[in-house]
């Protein structure tokens, strides 16, 4: 199937968002439009404060757009919902539940009436898919950050939604584990045919994962870059390839141009 035949999964139409304080207003997003196809992996790339996490919070329904609308499968997004599973940077596992308990919580929330036996089997299989079968009876406090984030991914998968939203999920994880997790997410999203929106400030991460990279500057989309490298991608295979280097250079240029502008503004205003 070519891209043009694919259905639109998420439709962001002229969306603006203002943070309203007691004294001041701050427009975090200005008139943003973006269309995301079914099964597509989109990275929102930008430096901190560019509004990428705000855009994700509109997608997951925790914030409501001040202007414009977001539609998923044609339906208006009016709040959080189980059609969009979220993985945060803070893993936020439920501390009173074991790894398996956390995944089971997700399964119980997904609205499908599984029998108890099915739920237990599913929980095991989700934990296995993130490579954590051996730690299923551990509590979050007994797990490392990387392991906790794996459980969080398994819990998000357990919601069995078509859409996965990631909010800088691996920002707090050390580089070696981060690579493992990136490859895990890349593999799982293809395997399970998920539509993914992934917020990051890491260019390499974006190239490794995305079909399309949306580069953001404060409040707006600066540019959109297609990543035309077949999945599954491996970091070691990518580095040194011409296509990769070109992409990297392109992204760095667009990324740092606006960082320079920012510095310029900070110095001269």
């Amino acid at each position: 199937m070519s891209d043009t035949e694919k259905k639109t999964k998420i439709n962001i139409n002229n969306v603006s968002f203002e943070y309203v304080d007691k004294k001041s207003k701050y427009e975090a997003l200005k008139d943003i439009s973006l269309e995301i196809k079914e099964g597509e992996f989109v990275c929102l790339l930008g430096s901190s404060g560019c509004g990428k996490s705000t855009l994700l919070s509109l997608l997951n329904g925790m914030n409501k757009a001040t202007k414009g609308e977001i539609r998923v499968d044609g339906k208006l997004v009016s709040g959080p919902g189980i059609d969009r599973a979220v993985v945060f940077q803070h893993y936020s596992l439920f501390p009173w539940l074991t790894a398996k308990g956390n995944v089971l919580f997700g399964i119980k929330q997904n609205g499908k009436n599984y029998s108890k036996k099915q739920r237990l089997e599913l929980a095991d299989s989700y934990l296995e898919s993130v490579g954590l079968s051996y730690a299923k009876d551990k509590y979050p406090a007994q797990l490392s950050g990387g392991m906790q984030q794996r459980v969080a991914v398994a819990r998000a998968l357990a919601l069995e939604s078509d859409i996965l939203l990631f909010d800088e999920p691996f920002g707090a994880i050390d580089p070696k584990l981060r690579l493992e997790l990136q490859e895990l997410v890349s593999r799982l999203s293809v395997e399970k045919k998920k539509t993914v929106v992934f917020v990051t400030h890491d260019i390499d991460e974006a190239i490794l994962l995305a079909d399309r990279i949306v580069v953001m500057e404060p409040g707006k989309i600066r540019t959109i870059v297609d990543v035309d490298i077949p999945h599954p991608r491996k970091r070691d295979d990518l580095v040194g390839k011409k296509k990769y280097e070109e992409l990297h250079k392109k992204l760095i240029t667009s990324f740092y141009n606006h960082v320079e502008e920012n510095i310029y503004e900070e110095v001269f205003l």
Partner: protein
Amino acid sequence: MKEKGLFKLDRSMYPELAVATLLFITDIALTLAMPYFSTHKAYYTSEAYITILVVTYVLYIANLFATKKKSASDIAVILFAFFALWEVSYKIGWIHNDLLVPSPEGLFHVFLEKPDEIVADIVGSVKLLFWGFVLAILLGTLLGLLAGWVDRVREVLLPISNVVTLIPPLMFSAYFVMVLPSFRSAAIAVIFMAVFWPTFQGMVTRVGQIDRRIIDTAKTMGVGTVGMLFKVIFPYCLPEIIGSISRTLRGAFMCLSGAEMLGMNLGIGYFTEKYKSFADYRCVLAGIVSVGVITTIIDLAVKKLNNTVIKWK
């Protein structure tokens, strides 16, 4: 350090163990030998006192082997030395007034003289405590959960509770005794007042301080209001709820004993108050010791509950 088995003790523990044991034997020898030196008329047999000594020693040994800490021996040494000093100063006549300060034999003998009365009073107290406490904890937690989550409920109930908690619960007891149909219900009401409001306020605070990220995560997972209260917030707060139980229990017992002393006809507080009027200070002391023992047992039970329920911390 090498891991030792349950019944093995490090050599460095031996000196303290020896001192504690020596003092324990001294205590027993003193009570068996000293009757003949006593300058007082009142004489009580030693069996109750010796039983207490032996139980204390057994508990000490059990604690020493369980914790493998020298502080266990230190406590035992202090306790047995205190008993020895008490015994000696009583028997050689340093303590003149044996009405006010009885011998250790005399104190513990009370438990042999009035076992039924003491047991009945303790059971009475604990029953009252139990009902008042369970009712208050359940309602306080439930209402606190609701008020913590729903702004409007909180804005109504919190100002009310801020006023009521400032009134010492014991002050209600004089009135409750008159208004309510029985002493029992009055005592339960007093305990309820002592436990309900702090529990309620603690719960409201806890819900307010809950990690927003946990709530956000639950919201993105489509958890509704009821699920949020009972499947997310309640388990999240459970360790602190149980942790606060032993604190509120202490307050509750204080109020109960106070209430019993003010106008009840049952309970260990009433027991103590009654024998105070008879100027039987042996019994008064025995009542005080009983309260110490019960509260300790309840405290240990709560800790045990905490360790069995809260596995994730």
